């Protein structure tokens, strides 16, 4: 079955994907950080039963401790699970839909972390699915909820709606003209935060950023989503006008075609070099310079992450073999 990230979404020149995440806890149990092995096993069973009863057979359950470290990191690279969840401690589980668009982490920081991913900018659609799934689960499980402080979460920064809405953006032009820090300052005043989606916090890889709401108490889900959407639309417009300016620079045009040349011909590609070059190629494609569908580039960015390459190409058991395999896959993808 094809994965959600291979689909074309709205505003896809700039927006790679959208994610809604809801945190929920079951009232009778202490939070995972203080829950023993037996308690976690019970929570896993309860959530599993609830999901399979209400949402049918399009989901499968994985006990995290059965996964290798690489398999877990690959899930994190695809944003199916959080980086913290890759430690695969006993008592943690994952429920995932066939196309990987809906997933539920069990006993991460909270008992339930339900998340919905969509290609492109699709905050309302993603929230609708998350909300419906959540309401269906609420009928089977007794959530820890208080009318005053909302959904009770292990971390008080999530109290209230316990919803984190995120949009993943490719902002090469704004990065090139040094605007990201100013943007980060502005959005933080509006109750949002922005950071690199890949690579380290200080040096985001591939000019891909994640912007999310920070405030969850005293605000409705709809307002939080609408606020985020309006800021994202402004960022898209800023990126577009910066791109129109930048693209006239012959040095940038040269860099875009050179990057494409390397990606189409390289026989060895490490992940860092790939991310740097694919960002230029994506820039060229979204500015209309190159005739490559951006959703193909998005899928490539996801599939070429280090652990994901390692997991799906088991014969490539050394770094050199993996770099060669990555180069081969990139050549194939760009050739169509």
């Amino acid at each position, binding site marked *: 079955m094809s994965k959600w990230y291979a689909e074309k979404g709205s505003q896809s020149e700039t927006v790679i994907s959208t994610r809604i995440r809801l945190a929920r806890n079951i009232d009778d149990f202490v939070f995972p950080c203080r829950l023993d092995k037996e308690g976690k096993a019970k929570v896993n069973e309860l959530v599993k039963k609830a999901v399979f009863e209400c949402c049918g057979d399009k989901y499968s359950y994985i006990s995290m401790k059965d996964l290798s470290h690489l398999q877990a990191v690959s899930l994190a690279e695809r944003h199916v699970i959080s980086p913290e969840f890759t430690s695969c401690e006993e008592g943690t589980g994952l429920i995932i839909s066939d196309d990987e668009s809906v997933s539920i982490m069990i006993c991460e920081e909270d008992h339930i972390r339900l998340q919905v991913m969509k290609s492109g900018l699709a905050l309302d659609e993603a929230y609708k699915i998350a909300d419906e799934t959540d309401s269906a689960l609420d009928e089977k499980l007794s959530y820890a909820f208080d009318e005053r402080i909302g959904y009770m979460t292990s*971390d008080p920064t999530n109290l*209230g709606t316990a919803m984190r809405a995120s949009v993943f953006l490719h902002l090469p032009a704004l990065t090139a003209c040094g605007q990201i820090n100013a943007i980060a300052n502005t959005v933080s005043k509006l109750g949002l935060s922005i950071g690199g989606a890949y690579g380290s916090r200080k040096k985001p890889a591939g000019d891909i950023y994640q912007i999310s709401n920070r405030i969850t108490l005293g605000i409705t889900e709809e307002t939080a989503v609408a606020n985020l959407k309006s800021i994202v639309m402004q960022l898209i417009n800023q990126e577009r006008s910066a791109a129109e300016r930048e693209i006239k620079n012959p040095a940038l045009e040269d860099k875009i075609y050179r990057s494409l040349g390397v990606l189409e011909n390289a026989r060895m590609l490490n992940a860092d070099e790939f991310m740097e070059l694919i960002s230029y190629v994506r820039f060229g494609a979204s500015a209309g310079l190159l005739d490559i569908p951006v959703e193909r580039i998005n899928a490539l960015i996801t599939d070429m992450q280090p652990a994901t390459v390692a997991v799906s190409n088991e014969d490539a058991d050394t770094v050199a073999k993996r770099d060669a395999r990555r180069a081969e896959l990139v050549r194939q993808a760009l050739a169509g």
Partner: protein
Amino acid sequence: MLCQNCGKYEATTHIKQIINGDMAETHLCPDCANHLGYGDMFSGFDFSLSGLLSGFLGDMLPPVSLGPVTRCEKCGCSFDDIARAGKVGCPECYRTFYDRLLPSIQRIHGKISHAGKTGQSAGNREKIETSGEKIAKLRVQMDEAVRVQNFERAAEIRDEIKKLEGENINE
């Protein structure tokens, strides 16, 4: 271990520095650590929200604890445990420590009342309340008990109020 700076309070901040290849260790109480510039939870760490929270809550830790420590009946967490981890142990902790969590919740979110989706379990229990609100409610009930001359019940409520007020003073 006592604070190396003031020698009065228990040291809770432990700093290891390597200067010219030699390791120097310093142990400070919260007040001295703040005063000497080691109180900033963010310096040297990646910014994270749970760091932010334990920073907030840490501000409110007393230098020495007075009297018996209140623990959550369900999970056994003390307020100290919550402040250090930046994480709450269970739903009951919010009820037990609501008074002391409230200022941090307000600082994080700017607001203190939920406005979003309502879970099905809403209304199953009484709403979370500060002890001030609980006491005010009990006073009304006590006056009502006196009015109907149910003095036994009024005395029970009076004891309950005293207990709540006592907890406030201890902490």
